[in-house]
């Protein structure tokens, strides 16, 4: 597919994202020049990494279905690997972990084939029942429940949830005249990331009362509401370009993404706090690990997918 076949709205969306990144790059460079005494290297690195994320994302959505599924599958793989590297695992489960990894290509194969029925039950039912059975064949019962619980939670978060992003690309394009096949995915990812940024900015400027002090002491009510409302406004404005949603449906989608993005963020924070690490990894300079960046999407992707799927597909 060449760029000529892309819906105009998608071309504008990518141009808009590139423009925003240009502004961010200029701002971070100017800040460093204005105040050489402060260290903005982390901000600079963060923006630079954003460019790479957007480039990978562009490859993931713009070329063809096979490329999309492979790139998004690899992202699931990296997220799941990061998760398994963080949590304590039992030595006896070596082979079980291998089976868990195998679920990733299989799950993304269902996506590529557009096989909704298996896509939606494979991990929650078949993998869910198979992995404990495989553990029992090994026979180590010490720590069984913790091992199988943590393993399946990781698969649900890193593979099942995130694979909903890929399935958005195989939904019939004719149901979404404005945005084509990639419109709703761009809409979801853009709003989720903007929501993160908006919650941070509102919290920094107005935040006082803490919302979940034990999990994430920097999150405030003002940040939360400011972010959710900003996201909802943007959701309504962008919906006709990228999605089949009506205005009132788009408002619902914006609120859903705003709230779910927050919950995803603090869920991964709780995981990190439990394990005593600051970042989930070091794959994305300036951001931390890949789970640090995907945290909100682990919640928004499946919830937004089923919202749109119920309403329009």
């Amino acid at each position, binding site marked *: 597919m060449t760029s000529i076949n892309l819906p105009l709205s998608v071309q504008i969306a990518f141009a808009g994202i590139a423009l925003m990144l240009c502004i961010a790059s200029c701002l971070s460079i100017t800040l460093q020049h204005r105040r050489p005494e402060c260290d903005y290297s982390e901000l600079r690195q963060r923006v630079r990494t954003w460019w790479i994320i957007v480039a990978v994302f562009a490859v993931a959505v713009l070329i063809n279905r096979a490329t999309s599924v492979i790139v998004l599958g690899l992202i699931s*793989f*990296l997220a799941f*690997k*990061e998760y*398994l*590297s*963080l*949590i*304590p*695992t*039992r*030595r*006896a489960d*070596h*082979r079980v*972990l*291998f089976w868990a*990894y195998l679920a990733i290509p299989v799950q993304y194969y269902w996506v590529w084939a557009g096989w909704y029925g298996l896509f939606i039950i494979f991990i929650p039912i078949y993998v869910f029942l198979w992995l404990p059975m495989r553990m029992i064949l090994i026979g180590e019962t010490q720590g069984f429940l913790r091992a199988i619980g943590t393993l399946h939670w990781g698969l649900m978060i890193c593979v099942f949830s995130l694979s909903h992003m890929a399935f958005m690309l195989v939904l019939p394009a004719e149901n979404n005249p404005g945005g084509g096949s990639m419109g709703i995915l761009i809409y979801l990812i853009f709003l989720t990331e903007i929501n993160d940024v908006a919650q941070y900015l509102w919290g920094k400027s107005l935040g006082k009362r803490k919302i979940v002090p034990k999990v994430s002491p920097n999150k405030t009510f003002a940040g939360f509401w400011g972010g959710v409302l900003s996201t909802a406004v943007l959701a309504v404005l962008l919906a006709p370009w990228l999605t089949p949603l009506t205005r009132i449906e788009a408002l619902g989608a914006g609120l859903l993404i705003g709230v779910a993005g927050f919950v995803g963020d603090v869920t991964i924070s709780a995981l990190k706090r439990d*394990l*005593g*690490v600051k970042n989930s*990894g*070091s*794959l994305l300079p300036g951001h931390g690990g890949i789970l640090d960046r995907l945290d909100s999407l682990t919640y928004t992707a499946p919830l937004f997918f089923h919202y749109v799927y119920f309403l329009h597909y």
Partner: protein
Amino acid sequence: MLRRLFYLLLVKPLVLFLIGLNVRGREHLPNSGPAIVVANHNSHLDTLVLMSLFPQALIPQVHPVAAADYFCRNRWLKAFALNIVGIIPIDRRPSARDGDTLAPLLTALDQGKILILFPEGTRGQPERRGKFKSGVAHLLSKRPDVPITPVFFSGLGKCLPKGEFVLVPFFVDVFIAPAIAWNGRRQGFMEVLEQAFDALQISADKPGCDQG
């Protein structure tokens, strides 16, 4: 040639993508021989990961030192280990100790090679460091000017522990310390080396490591 392709096309992609490394202190690795790199040993992957840390142009100079009784136990494995991986085999039987055992290593150092040594002698228990053998001190007492760089791996014993042939991906931490110089005493030197590894291990120990 085959050896360079093996590392470029097979080992580097495997190590960088399938496993994934967090390297700290890469600048401490030697960029020319003669030099010795010592590492803890938990998995066959240790050698491959260490080799992949060196720039492609340096690969022909770098040779892992490995046990002849293990890697030369049949013709195919021997050909692969010698020509593709590029090991220098040594005889680790007690009767062959000292002079003869180390001779091929001394020759390699004199040719300006970089040697990779695993002073534990064997892979041992996954994710547990065994006691170092003093062969490296014997080697240094004969070539006192050669710098020795400690490298500590954490996590490779989870990816491919001894006795397993199924590789399970995990991110792996690699910690590299500045080179240590020979201090003239065998016993004292092994203590210094063990201390360097203890320090690397402390910086590596964090929640999330294998607790199996």
